[in-house]
């Protein structure tokens, strides 16, 4: 079943056109990755899905319902969580408070919040050890865990991850990708944006290649891994 369907998406920053008619689909239960060079429009795609930017044209459907007309906070309620690029954690809030903000839409459901927090701590035991520490004092890797954990707090149907491996040590990169698979195995659909195309294509079911605001290639992840153009442009092979 199609969970997310994007049709002919056009997004602008003032006069600059960042997305020039994107088509993209995510099936329920999948990991789909969006790869592309710097400035291709990956972040813009995610920000348009989560309602931070309004598209000028095209539509976005979640479970067949239009969401591109909703304000961002309603899109979260509809079941999409977004872990933004660059670990935008709340630096002067504690780890626990950051996680609670992730569950903001659950309002007064204390039991559910508690349960979800425990799940996040199972996934990232490090966060539990640091739960009373201010977000801004965490290491880069811990902040990345917090960004992902926070996005899972509302029990989303679909989670958008923007470059979760950026700036992490190789050991940690592997751990993050393992975690993404684990999250998916627990029933969360994932739309993953990555510069690390090889690692992303290895965990994903399908992938889309973005170039200057357009999808230029898409298909099963293992086929993209073997594709000549992808190997040359994104996997650094000759």
């Amino acid at each position, binding site marked *: 079943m199609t969970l997310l369907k994007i049709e002919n998406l056009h997004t602008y920053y003032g006069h600059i056109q960042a997305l020039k008619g994107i088509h993209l689909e995510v099936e329920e239960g999948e990991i789909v990755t969006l790869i592309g060079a710097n400035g291709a429009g990956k972040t813009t795609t995610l920000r348009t899905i*989560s*309602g*931070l930017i309004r598209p000028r044209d095209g539509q976005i459907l979640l479970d067949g319902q239009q969401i591109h007309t909703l*304000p*961002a*906070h309603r899109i*979260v*309620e509809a079941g999409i*969580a*977004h872990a*933004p690029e660059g670990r*935008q954690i*709340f*630096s*002067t*809030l504690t780890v626990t*408070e950051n996680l*609670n*903000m*992730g569950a*903001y*839409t659950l*309002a*007064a459901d204390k039991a559910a919040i508690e349960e979800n927090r425990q799940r996040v701590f199972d996934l990232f035991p490090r966060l539990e050890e640091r739960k009373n520490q*201010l977000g*801004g*004092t965490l290491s880069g890797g811990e902040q990345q865990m917090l960004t992902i954990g*926070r*996005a899972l707090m*509302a029990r989303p149907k679909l989670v958008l991850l923007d470059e979760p491996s950026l700036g992490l040590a190789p050991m940690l990169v592997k751990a993050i990708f393992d975690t993404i698979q684990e999250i998916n195995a627990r029933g969360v659909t994932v739309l993953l944006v990555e510069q690390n195309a090889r690692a992303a294509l290895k965990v994903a079911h399908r992938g889309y290649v973005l170039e200057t605001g357009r999808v230029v290639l898409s298909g099963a992840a293992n086929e993209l891994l073997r594709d000549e153009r992808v190997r040359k442009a994104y996997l650094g092979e000759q």
Partner: protein
Amino acid sequence: MQFIQQLIQQLINGITIGAFYSLVALGYTMVYGVLKLINFAHGDMFMWGAYLGLTGFNVALAMVGQAGGWSILPIVIILMLTVALVGVLVERIAYRPLRSAGRLAPVISALGVAFILQSLARNVYGASYKTYPTGITPTGGLSLAGSARVSTMQIIVLITSFLLMGALYLFVQRTRIGTAMRAVSLDHDTSRLMGIDVNRIIAIVFLIGPGLGGVAGMIVALYYGSFDFTLGWSYGLKAFIAAILGGIGNIPGAMLGGMLLGIIETLGAGYLSPQWKDVIAYAILIIILIFRPTGLLGERVAEKV
């Protein structure tokens, strides 16, 4: 001995005035937190609290023949709600449409609202000094050591202010909405990604800040006995300075900055001369800012880039 008694007296007076500054400073600092806007209209909302109190007491006198005692409670509540409502409307009409218009336009808009509120007060109530009906301000007090005294009014001021500030602090630190307020102060977009309705949080801030400011306006008018339409300008500016001194955007900072400013001013006036108190107070302020440009409690954790 004489010296100690005098010092205690000055400190009591200073803390009382500091409590006013703190209550008003909170309004500046909370709005700055969520919008990065200096709400110059805040002082005039506070001034309106004083005038609405006046109307409230006069109405109470006319209706029930007395305005003191417990009749003060409904007056305070109605006044607080009215000023809070004005705050929310001002945000909705004069600030929200300018939110993506850069830093300058909203500040000018705030100044415009300040002048409007001030002129309105002058046109409605007249330019002369106003006094609250006699018999409302409680008299009497307690003698402390020797000649030092704390008046009943001061006790009321201090208890009310500390209760209000304590409640606000707990609200901001402990509740879901309060935490969301702190999140919005850090980053609007990321807050929206949490499912926070940022506009709603901003509206709540504009309920609380002017609501507290309105109550402070009434208490200040009671404490001093008389005021005019420039109350918001003079007092508001001092409270704004208190907010900067404590670290603008920081709620405990506003409380601390207000107290410090009140105490420094009173000590300056008491031990030097009233004419020199502002010179002393603001020289100290400048020195503090030179050493701590972000204010006393501002930005204790470095913001990441």
